[in-house]
Structures are given as C-alpha cells and as structure tokens.
C-alpha cells in the first residue's frame, strides 16, 4: 500500500513580485518528498483559502515580502476557519519584523521564517506542524 503523501500549498499573497524565496522553498519541499501545489504570484487570501480547500493540503506556506502580512494573514486565518480548515497549519516566510511574530503566532501561524533560514529548518517545521495538526491521513 502506498503511504499517504503529504501535500502542501505554497502561495504568494500580496502585490510584490519577488517569488524567488517561494520557489526555493517549493523546490526544497519537493526534494524532501512533498507534493507542492504552487500557485504563483499575487494571490488574494480568498484564492489561497480556496486553493487549500480544493487541493486538501496538509499545510499552507505563505511567502510575504510586501509588509502586508498583518493585513493578509488575519484575513486568511478567518477564511480558513469559516471553511472548516482549522486543522490546516499555516507557516509564514518573508520579511517579517520580529515584533510582529508573537501576534502572528497568536493568530495561529505555526512558524515564521525570516531571511537566511536554512531550507532544512523549513522542511522540519513543515513536518512538525503537519504532525501536530494530526489530520489523520
């Protein structure tokens, strides 16, 4: 029997066009054996939530470098909750000031990564977040 394969969404909400970080992470996750649904640039929170729902992902990774994380993340979290996707962990990378991290964690963001994070650490954080969400498949 094939074991259940982990699927993650890598999305780039907001208006900046810098997707190199998202691509590096997507590639690293692929090489670690994840199926990565990559949505590309300029996603609205609605698009991210809907893609996560249709694809039934085990985790969502967001890349935000525009500084709009304090607007985008709460919106996404609210949508996920409304859709019944509270068991899908959200991880965030990009340019995130340290003082925002506690508030983001408070909103339910599982991990926040800044520039210079090793991809190995990111992969580990995805695995941990998925394990502790324990969606049972």
């Amino acid at each position, binding site marked *: 029997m094939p074991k259940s394969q982990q699927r993650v969404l890598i999305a780039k909400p907001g208006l900046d066009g810098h997707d190199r970080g998202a691509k590096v992470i997507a590639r690293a996750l*692929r090489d670690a054996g994840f199926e990565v649904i990559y949505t*590309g640039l*300029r996603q609205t929170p609605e698009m991210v939530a*809907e893609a996560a729902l*249709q*694809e039934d992902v085990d985790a969502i990774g967001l890349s935000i470098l525009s500084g709009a994380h304090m607007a985008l993340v709460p919106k996404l979290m609210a949508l996920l909750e409304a*859709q019944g996707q509270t068991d899908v962990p959200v991880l965030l990378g990009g340019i995130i000031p340290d003082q925002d991290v506690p508030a983001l964690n408070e909103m339910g963001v599982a991990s926040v990564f800044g520039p210079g994070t090793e991809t190995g650490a990111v992969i580990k954080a995805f695995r941990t977040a998925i394990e502790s969400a324990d969606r049972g498949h």
Partner: protein
Amino acid sequence: MGLVDRALDGDRLALARLVSEIEDESPAGDAALGELFPHTGRAHLVGVTGGSGTGKSTLVNQLALKIRSVQGNGYPKKVAIVAVDPSSPFSGGAILGDRIRMRDLAGDSGIFIRSMASRGALGGLARRTRSVVQVLDACGYDLILIETVGAGQSEVEIASTAHTTIVVDSPGLGDEVQAIKAGILEIADILVVNKADLPDAPKAVMALRMALELGYPKGAANRLQDGQAEPVATPSIWTPPLLETIATRGEGIEPLVRAIDGHRDYLIASGEIEARQRGRVRAEMDHLLRDQLAVDFLSARGEDAYQKAIERVLARELSPRQAVQSIIRGAPEGR
C-alpha cells in the same frame, strides 16, 4: 453525515478530502468510491494532452472560463479540472504548478480544480486519476477537463479515460515526420495548434493538416481548404478538426468549445459513446486486475522468493522473463 453524503450534497471540503482518500488508495476511499459509483456517468470527460510547454494549462483555463460564460443549451455547466504533473523519480515529491495558469478561475464556485502528482505512473495520468474523475462526476460536475502531464509520444492513457481527447501542439516542436508518427496524434479527437501567433505556426498547421489528410482523406482535407475549421459531425465517421488558438489572449476558444460539443453529439449520434464507455471500463478493470493480482501474488508467495529471483537475474542465471515465469510456477530455485 459522512464524507460521501456531504460531498454529494455539494460540500466542497468533503469532496476535496474524499479525493485525497482516493488518491492515497485508503480503504475508506475505496469504500467511498463504491458508494459514489452509481452516481457517475453524467459528466462529459475531456482530456487535454500534448507536449510540455505547448500551453495546456493556459488553454484549460480559457476553456473553463468560456464554458462558464456560455448560456443556454445546457450551459453554463459546472466544470472540474484535474491537472496531472510528474512526481520526482528520486524524492517522490512534485511541484504541481498548473494552478498558476488558472488564476482567472478563482472565485467561481462552479469550478473545482484539483492537482495530482503522477506518483510514478507513466501513461500521462496518475494511477488514481480515473477514480478521482469518477468522484467529481458523481458530485455533479458536468464537464471534467483532464490535463495530462506534458506528454511526449506515447502517453496515451488519456484516450481510454476521456470521451473527447484534445491534443495540443505548438509551433517549433518538430518536422512533418513527427506529425505522422504513431502515438499521441492518433488519439486526437480534436487537434489544436496553440500559440498560433508565433512565426512558425503556419508550418505546424501545415504539417498536422498533411498528417490528417493521410489519415482521413476526405473530411479533413475538404474542410480545411476553405479556411473553415468547424467540426463536421456525420454519424458514421469523425474527422478531427484542426483548430488554432492563442490561449494567452483567449483567441480561438469558442470554436474549440463548439468542437467539444460537436464531438460529444457525434459520439451520442453514432453510438460510439457506448463503445468508448465499454473500452474505458475494460481499461480500468485491466489495470485494477493487474495491480491486485501482483499484490496478492507477491504477498502469497512471499518477498523472499522474489528477492531470490532478483538475485538470480543479477547473477545472469535467469532472464527477467524466466525469473517471473519460475515464480509463477512456484519453482524459484530453477527450471
């Protein structure tokens, strides 16, 4: 309510989670498939295949947009998209990027998009693509677009999965001999030259037209000479229309939608739809039978015997075929 009832009731989260169960080949997924199967058979299944980079995803995006905007005559239809991308043979991971080209479809609750990794299957689809399509069919999606991995010449499994197969080509990918090789072009019910604004487009169209004329001497030749690319549905024979599109600009999409409808009408009028359905069931059961037999056989015979046989092949004592035959006969030690 269980997942199956919720999905049948239009709950998209339940549908998505059911699809995962089926993709993972879990016992719960198999049971759900059994419950859902009586509800299948209503959707028209449209395959979109062709080489990588020919613009399949962009075309699927435009097709779905167009199909959702048409009114009357059974439209607008609910559209599901199943897009398959390859898994890495090394890590088993995959990057599923078809949604990048489908952002126009976000926000329409009449569209459901699911990306699938091929998970080692080589026919252009994943092992469970057929089953996933059945779930979407049962849950009321009228038209299901199935996008294959970027296909080379022999990824033709889509033809035994879809009712209507669209083969997408784009300029600059090969000469006329490519166009008459066996394989992918033979399975086309509709041929599309995408990126028709590129300088080499007339050459690609010409090569495909010549290939079509060889295969379908009358219909294709006559129809295409007067610049008409409309499909002709005579009850006896279908000649694949050759259409040009520029998917990035949404050009040529309406004739393509009409061609899909035309092919569907032809399948029904000619009775070929039943033959195709029979073929589809046969192909699916063949697959399942082979998979199941292999699993059962190996678990009954034991992994040890198999390993021993592998060692003997490595030692060049047996050919792989001899090794398999000796295992089946139950005499792995020798002839």
